[in-house]
């Protein structure tokens, strides 16, 4: 029955530490953990990446299928993001119907990637109105040590860059034995990243570990990318019962571009 929830005393302790600008692993409040990316972790997927953010580990895989387009977008390819929190990732998760956090992660990744228009969905049409490519992004958290959303978006972005379009045979079916014809059509220079801010007491922190995340009252995630040389927020999601003040949002907006640049530099070094 181990509920593994955080104790009152520990929350108070974190409040005190954060107000002094200190964290257990020696980072400052707005430092990220070390980011590591590994490609081609799955030989069955068209593209895959394993992202490690400290001890947090997420695997993302891209699968491409031929299917019918959605009725409201006959000349566009389809994008689907799915994912679940598995008991392998965390002792806090049990088998069964997906919990709220497990539903939230793929939806946030979906919005961050879709709204950044990173994928050229119009170029994924095989026969207009009839046959299009469906891009399926699968997200598998392997280890949950906090900040899964940011790690999941980086994994999905990296895996998309790694993805290849499989060849089609004369019947229009995917021919897995033929050499692949090319890369997935992606827009140049767009690599969306989510940056989540967490608040405890009056302190704003980035990239929390599991216990820090549990102590925090509220979270806001920003899906950011670059469009025409400018930073753009594509998506945003807040969860938690507390509020952010206007000055806190301004504080975040000062950090956000720098954080995005820092993370995308690291991501680009792996691309």
């Amino acid at each position, binding site marked *: 029955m181990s509920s593994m929830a955080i104790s009152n005393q520990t929350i108070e302790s974190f409040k*005190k530490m954060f107000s002094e600008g200190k964290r257990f692993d020696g980072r400052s409040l707005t430092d990220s953990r070390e980011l590591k990316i590994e490609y081609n972790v799955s030989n069955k997927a068209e593209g895959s990446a394993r992202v490690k953010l400290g001890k947090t580990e997420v695997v993302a895989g891209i699968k491409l299928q031929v299917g019918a387009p959605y009725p409201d977008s006959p000349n566009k390819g389809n994008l689907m993001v799915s994912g679940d929190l598995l008991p392998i990732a965390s002792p806090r998760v049990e088998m069964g119907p997906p919990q709220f956090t497990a539903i939230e992660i793929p939806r946030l990744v979906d919005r961050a990637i879709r709204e950044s228009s990173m994928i050229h969905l119009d170029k994924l049409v095989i026969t207009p109105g009839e046959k299009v490519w469906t891009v399926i992004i699968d997200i598998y958290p392997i280890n949950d040590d906090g900040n899964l959303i940011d790690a999941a978006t980086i994994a999905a972005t990296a895996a998309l860059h790694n993805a290849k379009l499989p060849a089609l045979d004369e019947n229009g079916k995917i021919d897995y034995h033929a050499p692949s014809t090319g890369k997935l059509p992606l827009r140049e220079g767009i690599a969306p990243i989510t940056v989540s801010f967490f608040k405890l007491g009056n302190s704003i922190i980035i990239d929390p570990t599991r216990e820090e995340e549990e102590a925090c009252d509220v979270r806001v995630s920003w899906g950011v990318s670059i469009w025409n040389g400018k930073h753009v927020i594509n998506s945003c999601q807040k969860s938690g019962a507390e509020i952010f003040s206007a000055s806190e949002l301004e504080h975040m907006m000062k950090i956000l571009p720098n954080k995005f640049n820092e993370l995308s530099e690291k991501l680009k070094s792996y691309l």
Partner: protein
Amino acid sequence: MDSKQISSSEELNTNVESKKRKLVVPGEVIVSGDDYLPGEGARRDGKDVVAGRFGLAEELGRVVKVLAITGAFIPKRGNVVIGRVVDITFSGWLIDIDYAGSGFLPLDESPRFVSKSDMDQFLAIGDIVVAKIWAVKSKGIDLSLQGGKGLGKLEGGFVFRVPPARVPRVIGREGSMVAMIKEKTGCTVTVGQNGWVWLKGPTVDAEIKARKVIEFVADNVQLEGLTEKAEEMLG
């Protein structure tokens, strides 16, 4: 809390001179010959004594045993554990002690009179408490706050976890490791047998340092001269 009291029941306290410990995996032959007796975590297989668990093999005279370094907490009577209050019932508190069954602390066990109407004045949900295991029953674990120094609600500080099987090493021989950390950092440390560690220090920096050392010790139980390395880290 008196750490000596916790460690007195630990198996590390032995007067028999022991040989160097060896890391073994289940099924690995530790020693061969009929002279040896398999102890805890070891079994006999023909002429050999083989390991039954992943851990450190130790020869104490003729007895060969394996000190496990992984595994869940298995409560025993008399263990001092740290738990978190998860629910308040009409007759006591339900305590999460990181075990499959929940711990129950009856109202009668509180050291002073607590009215049934305001039990959360003494222990609220989310508070941490040090308690002694009074009985392990099939329907749950009975906890007690009597018969020991340092039992009761913990004020301030924070809790983190180490693998329960590594608690003996964190405490050290007769509490030496914990005593050293306390002395060098000025922190108050309580280690529960269930692997929960409560820490409270004079400054945030001292707390961070003490936690780092305790986690280092828990991660490196197989190292020789761990006390010296921990001392080096404390500076």
